[in-house]
């Protein structure tokens, strides 16, 4: 920011106090506001320019002052001027905006991932440790948070104006957005895509807390099972481990360490295994067959909810060795509770 930070803060805080401007509560917010003020400046200049021309010419050349008009055909120079200058300014807006866009929609690698499931007419937030929230989102400040979002029904859109982030939440595929909250406080979150009757009721609160407070909250709010643990249960109960059991002769590929890797499919293409891929593979397995395996995986479309898919995806993400997979087999065949691994929240 090349503007004096003091002046900037003064302007923002004063506007915010007058309920005319949102808070700047994330790392990206000042960048967004800078672009906004630039665009605002362009608009004001443009308006003043056009207004002065109209006003000035009207005054100078009003009929009582200039009874006879002088016919002027035009001027190529002027045309070029007011083509090139606006174009140049608009292109500046384009480049600046594009940079900002790429920044907001490309999360840093070390982001903490929180899942958001939208449905008519509420938001469900699912933290990896198993904390579930409805119409609310608790986040620590000072840490990049990635939201991986999907809708269970229609188009929604998840918006936190004070963080200057927003992304459509659509059925059928994950969309993501990230932010890094800077100020402790509570902020509005809205659904901004018309989704039916209670569209304006689909609002909630984002609570940004210090990391210590967040830890405390996380410990108090857990449902007992992390997402991955839930996923483990589902992996067994839905029969995934029948084929994906990690044995050498298994009918399905080994899932240990598959997340984040590059996979070659039977049609020769290479894919990066991320959340979207895993979800798609569960729902449309015939298009995601790993090379060397037969296309025999049944589809789970209609048999599993978006929450269940999130749990499964989280579980697969945690698989580093065959140990966990084999444990699920043991678990599903016995009535013992599944053993927990060290970092997971204790039930």
């Amino acid at each position, binding site marked *: 920011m090349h503007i004096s930070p003091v002046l900037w803060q003064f302007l923002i805080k004063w506007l915010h106090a007058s*309920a005319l401007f*949102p808070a700047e509560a994330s790392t990206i917010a000042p960048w967004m506001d800078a672009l*906004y003020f630039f*665009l605002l400046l*362009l*608009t004001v200049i*443009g*308006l003043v320019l*056009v207004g002065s*021309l*109209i006003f000035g*010419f*009207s005054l100078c*050349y009003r*009929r*009582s002052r200039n*009874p006879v*008009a002088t016919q*002027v*055909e*035009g*001027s190529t120079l*002027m*045309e070029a001027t007011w*083509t090139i200058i*606006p*174009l140049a300014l*608009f292109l500046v807006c*384009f480049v600046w*905006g*594009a940079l*900002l*866009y790429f920044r*907001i*929609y490309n999360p840093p690698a070390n982001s903490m991932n929180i899942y958001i499931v939208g449905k008519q007419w509420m938001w469900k937030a699912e933290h990896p440790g198993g904390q579930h929230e409805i119409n609310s989102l608790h986040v620590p400040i000072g840490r990049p948070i990635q939201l991986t979002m999907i809708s269970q029904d*229609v*188009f929604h*859109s998840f*918006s936190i*104006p004070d963080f200057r*982030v927003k*992304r459509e939440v*659509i*059925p*059928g*595929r994950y*969309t993501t957005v990230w932010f890094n909250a800077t100020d402790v406080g509570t902020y*509005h979150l*809205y*659904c*901004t*895509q*018309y989704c*039916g*009757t209670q*569209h*304006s009721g689909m*609002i909630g609160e984002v609570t940004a807390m210090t990391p210590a407070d967040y830890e405390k909250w996380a410990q108090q709010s857990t449902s007992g099972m992390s997402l991955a643990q839930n996923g483990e249960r589902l992996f067994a109960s839905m029969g995934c481990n029948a084929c994906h059991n990690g044995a050498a002769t298994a009918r399905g590929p080994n899932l240990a360490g598959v997340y984040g890797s590059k996979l070659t499919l039977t049609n020769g293409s290479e894919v990066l295994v991320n959340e979207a891929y895993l979800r798609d593979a569960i729902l*449309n397995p015939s298009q995601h067959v790993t090379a060397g395996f037969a296309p025999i995986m049944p589809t789970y*479309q209609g048999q599993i909810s978006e929450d269940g898919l999130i749990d499964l995806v989280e579980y697969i993400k945690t698989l580093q060795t065959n140990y966990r997979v084999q444990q699920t087999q043991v678990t599903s065949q016995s009535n013992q509770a599944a053993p927990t691994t060290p970092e997971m929240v204790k039930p």
Partner: protein
Amino acid sequence: MSTAPNAISNTIVLLPDQATATIPKKNYITAEHGLLSWLLTGDHKRIAMLYLISITFFFFIGGAFAGMIRLELLTPQPDLVSSDTYNKFFTMHGIIMVFLFLVPSVPATIGNFLMPIMLGARDLAFPKINLLSWYLYLVGGVLTLAALVLGGVDTGWTFTTPLSTHYLNTHVITAAMAIFVAGFSSIFTGLNFIVTIHRMRAPGMTWFRMPLFVWSHYAASILMVLGTPVLAITLVLVALERAFGIGVFDPTKGGDPLLFQHLFWFYSHPAVYIMILPGMGVISEVISTFSRKRVFGYTAVAFSSVAIALFGFFVWAHHMFIMGVSNYSALVFSLLTMLVAVPSAIKIFNWAFTLHKGSITFETPMLYAFGFMGLFTIGGLTGVFLGSLGMDIHLTETYFIVAHFHFVMVGGMLMAFLAGVHFWWPKMTGRMYPESLSKLAAVTTFIGFNLTFLPQFILGYLGMPRRYHAYPPEFQVLNVLSTAGATVLGIGYMLPLLYLGWSLKYGEIAGNNPWQATGLEWQIQSPPLTENFTEIPIVDYEAYDYEWLEKKQKEQVTTVG
């Protein structure tokens, strides 16, 4: 003309002596009598009048819905009507205003009336298709009213799937069919205009001697003809999906809801240019007449109209930047959006410089034109905000968008429409409207408009989402300001309805050319004959040839007495 123009008065209005003047006995209104002669007419002027009455009717219905919306939004709580009803309010407001008012507003009324006359033709190329257009519009309108009466539609005017196809039990198919039919009305109007402009210009009327009004309608007609059919097929797909549950937009069945978005916006973006281009044509005519000057840079303005039409086809996905389109396609569409903004800027500057060295008067059409220029500048530049990718993330789906498009459509297009109605009212009816009252209405509209929509920009940046029935209490002050403005705006729109109606009986007789304007339409009587011209003119002079006009008037003055 029996009185010499006063050289330094502040108006260019020149009326015949009111003591002796009469409306010409033989004109297109008196040519035939009876309701059927109007309902089965082929006369483009009568069809234009039929359209004028119809769209005014729908405008006030759409306006009533707007009033209800603003009334509800006075308070943060959803306390006036139920949420379902509110959702129907904004849906019906959008559908009626876009498809039944804005799209046909200038082309079907003023365009229909004037295009043949401006070109020196006796009628449009296909008068029967012109009448069919009006009937299709009526069917579309009736179906919309049917959807309303049967309980309303609450999809939003954008019919987003899968909400509209699988999650609502309102009369979506009826509304979709209404717009389907109204779309063909638009297609046939555009088709008629294109053929007329290509094939029926008077001898000597080359492309570059046509008034800029015609150029802008030509560009809009290309959009109508090429874009509207895509909307038609999209609505068919929505109806089929809804009726048979195929899954073409349903991800659980392998379909893609984003496909609908692409198909829908492929028309709906050009649609906004269909709406604005004819209005820009009106502004060209008005600014020229009331500056007594040829439009500065005629060629640039003509080409910029066509450029807007062309570029307008390639920017549709800027309505979808945050919907999960790839980052790279977002880049392309943002760049193209910046390009499409340039021709509009060119026009604004050309109009402004038309004023330079002109001889300017401030009759009502000119006031509306000035209002247009200011408000369209704001509206257009806020479009640049939205075309800028990163900025769009924060502003999209908020009241900023609502403010942006109301600035261009209401502050822009509706003002241009009113400018045109006032400017050509004497030609269409033979009577003048009351000037002082109309100036008051214009100023009232301008003030009311700004009060209504400027606060909405602020609300948008604050994050207030659009289509919200209830909102957080801290947004109330701005909403109250907006509603107050809407009230003033409503008064500003009621006034023309009243005094224009009044003028039909009591307005001053206008004569052929009350504005002393150039253009073929001002060389014939007001109201015109059914066949427009007793003899087809031969055009051997440029458009906006004020020197020719002045010479003609000097000759008339010196030959009197």
